[in-house]
């Protein structure tokens, strides 16, 4: 039986946060609704109130200040794909946004919703992690800014406290010399949750040596993170196919170390290695930013 609740439309962020002071334990936050409405259809939304933040201007801005890109939590995937600032400062996020669902889903779904839902397969998360994204979180009485890895703490679990709303994301500016690559495995090219996804951003110096590499793979570990031991294996070296293969194996070893051996490991081990090889080969050897 479909969940039933009251609908609250705050006219400002302050109004939304003030409402949560007394009602947060009985409230679900609604942005695009592409996750919440499925839960509601199944009768899984126990909240008495649903607070719609999708129209709050304070959460809808895309802006660049001193090179740091800020994206409001209620910005939709379509807006991310069409934003000239994101095309310039975080194109990998625009690419990942274009992989989500369908045009219809992208017109409604939001960045904040993707993070708050905290699916391990969230397509926006690896791109945000490789950009060192920080999350601005506000309540009526507090404001904090946390690295994304401290906000998503497990499958479908965040460290958000009662009364808090994610308001925006702040991205580390990376210069033009950085290349990026986003890969994804899914059943179809549209309308499919990612089985595994991967974001890679890196930079070669004038000698062709990797002087920065950021790698984050979705759906392979309980909490999303950068694959730092794999990154370190390539840093300071000139990339070649056998080195890239070693990096890929480091990623799959890290996956098994953190997630254990599961039913899916037989599939995921070669799949994630193949995905990492593809991403790094395109990044450094073919020098494609996602052909």
């Amino acid at each position, binding site marked *: 039986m479909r*969940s*039933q609740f009251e609908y609250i439309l705050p006219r400002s962020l302050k109004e939304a946060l003030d409402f949560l002071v007394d009602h947060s334990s009985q409230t679900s936050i609604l942005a*695009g*609704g592409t996750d919440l409405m*499925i839960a509601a*259809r199944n009768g899984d939304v126990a909240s008495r109130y649903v607070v719609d933040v999708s129209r709050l201007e304070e959460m809808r801005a895309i802006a660049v200040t001193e090179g740091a890109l800020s994206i409001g939590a209620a910005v939709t995937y379509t807006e991310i794909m069409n934003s000239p600032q994101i095309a310039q400062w975080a194109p990998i996020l625009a690419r990942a946004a274009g992989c989500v669902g*369908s*045009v219809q889903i992208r*017109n409604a779904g939001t960045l904040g919703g993707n993070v708050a839902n905290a699916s391990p397969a969230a397509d926006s998360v690896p791109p945000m992690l490789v950009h060192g994204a920080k999350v601005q979180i506000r309540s009526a009485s507090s404001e904090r800014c946390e690295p994304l890895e401290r906000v998503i703490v497990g499958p479908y679990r965040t460290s958000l406290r009662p009364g808090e709303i994610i308001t925006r994301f702040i991205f580390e500016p990376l210069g033009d010399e950085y290349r990026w690559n986003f890969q994804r495995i899914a059943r179809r090219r549209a309308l499919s949750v990612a089985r595994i996804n991967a974001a890679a951003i890196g930079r070669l110096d004038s000698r062709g040596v990797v002087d920065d590499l950021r790698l984050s793979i979705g759906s392979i570990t309980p909490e999303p993170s950068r694959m730092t031991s794999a990154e370190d294996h390539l840093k300071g070296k000139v990339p070649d196919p056998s080195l890239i293969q070693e990096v890929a194996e480091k990623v799959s070893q890290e996956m098994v170390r953190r997630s254990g051996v599961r039913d899916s490991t037989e599939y995921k081990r070669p799949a994630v290695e193949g995905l990492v090889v593809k991403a790094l080969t395109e990044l450094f050897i073919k020098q494609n930013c996602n052909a």
Partner: protein
Amino acid sequence: MNRNLKDRTQRLLRISFVLNGMPVNIEVRPWETALAVLREQLVLTGTKEGCGIGECGACTILVDGFAVDSCLMLAPKLDGRKVETVEGLRQGEALHPLQEAFLSNGAVQCGYCTPGMLMSAKALLDRNPNPERDEWVEALSGNLCRCTGYVQILEAVEDAAKTLGKAKKLS
């Protein structure tokens, strides 16, 4: 937590929006979907429920020109918006060029995906009257069809784009 449904508020929410060019002012249950309100309250049954979870696009409507799955849209979110459904495509007794093109290109078999396909195509053509093929393929990629194999649908959209493109040039 008390899950007795009678304890949930029975208060209805009043919303007003423009639907297919006409103002609408109705009361809705706050947890209802836009799809249910359109079909059951407003008796506009052109929009279909295929999956109810945003994976087939049969329920596609336009809200402020954007294609959305109405099964995933809470009805109160329609407030203040400009909403278009398949019923709004016809212009008096004349069909919309998209509808004509679907008919003449054999793009309708069982017809269940058709309203959603038409609305997704309209969203594209309203914004971009001269799309490239990959653009209308992308625009329809959120609409599933189990009958046609998509070819006739894509040809119909191309056909309609030509018609609309010509009309734009003449006007």
